[in-house]
Each structure stands twice: as C-alpha cells, then as structure tokens.
C-alpha cells in the first residue's frame, strides 16, 4: 500500500531509492536492535552483580575485601579505558571462540557485551554509593544478614539509579554499535557511515541520524518514566 502511494507520488527513480532506503533502514534497525538487546541483557546479568561486588567489598561495608575490590576496579577501569574500536578488534579471538565466527551482528554483540558489563557495573556502583549508609546501618542493627541487606535495602533503594544507569548504558550501546560495521555487524549507525559518509548520500545520513535521535529520545523518556515511578524520594 505504501509502495503504491510512493509510486503514484514520486518519479520512478526517486520511488526506487526511497523503497531501497526503507528496506535498508528496516534491516539496519533490526541489526541494531539485536546487538543492543543482547549486550543490554549482558549488562544486567553481568554488570549488576559486578557493580554490587565493587560496592560491598569496599569501605566499611559488610564484605570488606581489599583484594576483590582492587581486582574488580582494575578490570573495570581497563575495559573502560580501551576505545571501543580497539576492543572490537582485540576481542576477535574471544568472539571466534564463543561463536565460531567473527562476522555479523551477533559477533559484534560479544565485544559490545563486554563493554556494556564494565560500563554498567560502574554506574551500578555509583548508584549504590548514593544509598544512605545510615539505612544500611539500621538494617544491620536489626540483625539483617548481608545477602538480605543487598536484596531488601541496597537493591530497592538504588533501583531508580539502576534504571537511569541502564538507559545511559543503552544509549551508549546504540552509539557503540555504529562501529560494529567493522566486523560486519551492520546497524543504523553503520548505514549512516556507509551510505551517508562513504557514498556522499547526505539524504541517507540525515534520515538515519533522525531515526537515531528519535530512538534515543524514546529510550531516555522511557527510562525517566520507569525511574521516577520507582523513586519515592520526592513524592
């Protein structure tokens, strides 16, 4: 139906271009969605526990463990200091070992996940630092076990921060995924680079950038809504 509408309203040449771009965009969107959702999933599964580990092994908290803390921090800092393009190449052997291939969106999702875990772990840790130590002390005073403090005090009190951090991570991952083109990952950002930059098709670049802006806005407003629903600090 849309194709008919386009064929009626535009010259055959332009109509062909528009339909091609639409197909490309749809494919790219699918690839971005795949890469970002896999790596976001890993950010939660891996980054959340790592962030907790960094926090509860620090300071005077209940599992004060310098070795675990220093090791965790070092690992996170190293991963965070490597530019993503380099990480993408550095982790090729890991990708090969995990998936048996180094090409395609799933392959790009491996380095993306590694970066996401380190990124999100740091955000989780800083959200946990925002939790009033007095509340943790109160829980300890009532005889709460460490695991229970994590589940019933730290997690719910830091949840709004976790959600905000997750959205920041998601948006960074959408940005990172543009570099996935290097390993044939595709995605919206890659589309913008290939057509808009290398082929000087400015209109393609503008369209993809608009799509990205809309996407980021949507993600951010969804995140803000979720976070403020979880946050009861100023109701």
């Amino acid at each position, binding site marked *: 139906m849309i194709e008919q509408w386009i064929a009626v309203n535009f010259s055959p040449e332009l109509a062909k271009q528009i339909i091609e771009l639409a197909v490309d965009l749809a494919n790219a969107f699918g690839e971005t969605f795949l890469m970002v959702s896999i790596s976001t999933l890993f950010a939660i599964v891996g980054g959340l526990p790592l962030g907790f580990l960094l926090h509860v092994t620090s300071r005077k908290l209940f599992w004060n463990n310098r070795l675990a803390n220093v090791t965790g921090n070092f690992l996170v800092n190293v991963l965070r200091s490597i530019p993503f393009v380099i990480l993408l190449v550095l982790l090729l052997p890991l990708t090969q070992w995990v998936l048996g291939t180094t090409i395609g969106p799933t392959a790009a999702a491996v380095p993306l996940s590694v970066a996401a875990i380190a990124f999100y772990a740091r955000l989780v840790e800083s959200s946990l630092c925002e939790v009033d130590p007095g509340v943790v002390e*109160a829980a300890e*005073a009532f*005889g*709460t076990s460490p695991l229970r403090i994590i589940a*019933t005090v730290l997690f719910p009190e830091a949840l*709004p921060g976790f959600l905000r951090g997750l959205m920041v991570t998601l948006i960074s991952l959408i940005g990172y995924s543009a570099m996935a083109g290097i390993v044939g990952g595709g995605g919206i950002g890659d589309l913008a680079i290939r057509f808009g930059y290398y082929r000087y098709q400015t209109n393609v670049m503008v369209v993809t950038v608009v799509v990205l802006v809309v996407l980021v806005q949507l993600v951010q407003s969804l995140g803000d809504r979720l976070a403020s629903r979880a946050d*009861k*600090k100023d109701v």
Partner: protein
Amino acid sequence: MIQLENIRVDFAVRGQSVQAVDNVSLSIARGEVFGIVGASGAGKSTLLRVINLLERPGAGRVRVAGEDITDLRGGELRRARQKIGMIFQHFNLMQNRTVYDNAAYALRVAGKSKAEIARRVPEILRLVGLEDKAQAYPAQLSGGQKQRVGIARAVANHPEVLLCDEPTSALDLETSAAILDLLKEINARLGITIVLISHEMAVIKKICTRVAVMDGGHVVEQGEAYDIFATPQHPFTRQLVEHTLNLELPPHLVDDRQGTILKLLFLGDQAEEGVLSTASIRHGVAINILHGKIEYIGHRAVGLLVVLLTDSPDAPTGLPFPLRLQAALSYIGTQASHVEVLHD
C-alpha cells in the same frame, strides 16, 4: 539489663590511633531510661553502638539481658540484635518503602509469619499514632512522623532494649517534646529499657532516670538524673547544667551592684520564700531576687535563685553592714542546699 565492662574503642585516624571510648564501665537496670550526655566527639555515639556491636570494642565485655554477646558473630549476633531496637538522629528509613513496610522490616528480618506481621504492624502504628499513614512514603512525612516510624520499626519485634541515638536532635522543640513523651510512654507501657544519647541536658532532664556524663572518651560522672542536675560534681557537668538552666544575668546588673550576689539552690520541698524573708528581717539586709526558676526532674523539684543582698535602710540592730551580711549568709547557708557567692 545491660552491663558494659571496661570498654575500649580505638579508631585509626590518618595512621594515628585515637581512643574514642576509654575504659568505660556502665550498668543499666531493666526498665530504666538511661541517658548518656556529652559534647560531640565525646564518644557517646560510639559507646551506644558498642551495645549492639555495630562498633566492636577493642577491649572489654558487653552483656545484654544476662548474655555475654561480645564474641558473637554471624547468625548468633544477628539473633541477639533482633532483641535490641534502635532509632537514629536522621531516622534512617528506607525511602522507597511505605511506612507499613518500614515498620514491618524488623519483623520480616526476624522471620515472623505473614499473619503475625499483618496483625502486629497496625497495632504498632497505632501506638505511635500513624495508623492513617500506613501507605505513605517517608518523603511525605514530617520529621516527627519519620521518627515515629523509626520508633515503630524499632519496637515492633518486642525488643528488650531500645537504643536511641540523638533521637530529637534533628527535630524542632515541640516535636522533640512529643517524641520524648512517646519514648517515655513506651518505656512505661512496654517496659522496654531505653538507652538514650544526647548532647542536650534538657532532653536528659525530661526523660532519663539515670545519667552518665561523657567527656573525651571517659565517663566523668554518673548517677540519678536528679542528683546530676541538682549537684553536678565534675566541671564539665556543671558547665552543661548551667548551660541548660541559663541563669545568665545582664552585665549591667553585675557591674552596678551594691552588695553581694548569691546563687541559692533549694532541693525538694525546702521553702525558699520563708528563708529569704527571715534572713531579711532577722539580719537587716535587703534581698532582691534577680533571677530564679524551678526545674522538675521526674516529680522532684530543683529551685534556683540568684539574689542580691544589700544594706537595708531600716536595719534593726546597730551592727555594721558587713557583719550583718555575714550573719545573713551563714543563716541562708544553713537553710539552702547549696549557696554560691557569684559576685562579692
């Protein structure tokens, strides 16, 4: 109920060891409201945290309800702590939980059944006067209401001891008084032993039966609240009490005086007016009251008067003024509990 024996707590501050609590021993009886008063940094907060081992002492023993808990760890320590409630200066409520969930916290930690929690929480919220706020979040409450939630949470699991860490320091005067009344009521109705720390003698005076005064990590004085207040021994205690009584005289009264200014202390039922008028008539001195107040600690009164003794124009005897003054002073001295010459 609580015995602290030779407690010592050291902190490492920038590589240096600082003794926050130095060889402190206290014994607190069942059902008492025991106050620990001192300036900030005196170690009172640390000492309070030793009682539930939030702060582990470097030396000494802690006994609560007859059990030596000093060496308990892990699950055993947690079970012991479930019998010790605690409230805080800044309330320390969970912001993302309702009043109901905050009040239920200690019960859930202690593994009480759903049915028991559903029965106990409304009961305890009624006790603190917040039954209509069960579904509110802490951010929707006033400071006094937050502290009430703190109290509900602390006493929900029927503790034997309630530790209060500066419970009214973040509240205005009126709210403070209401919170202290509530604590008093809880002490009387539930028989919970209360240990309260404060830097304000006024708080101690209002609620405590016994007091320990801390300064520089030591307990410098302890005893009945009435005695500490009426006859403080240690200079630091005296300073604290004087601060609370606020018997300052305006400078011009002191500078322009033409006689002797005395501070008189009357304890219990001693009749103040009678003493002064008798002294005036019998010894021919004029007595002006410059300042005075009666403080009630528990049900007992402490009367304080600042008076100016001058020569009376119609003195009955021919004796010179200094001699009459001397006689008046010694007469007052036999009648009042304590006489202090402030300005000659």
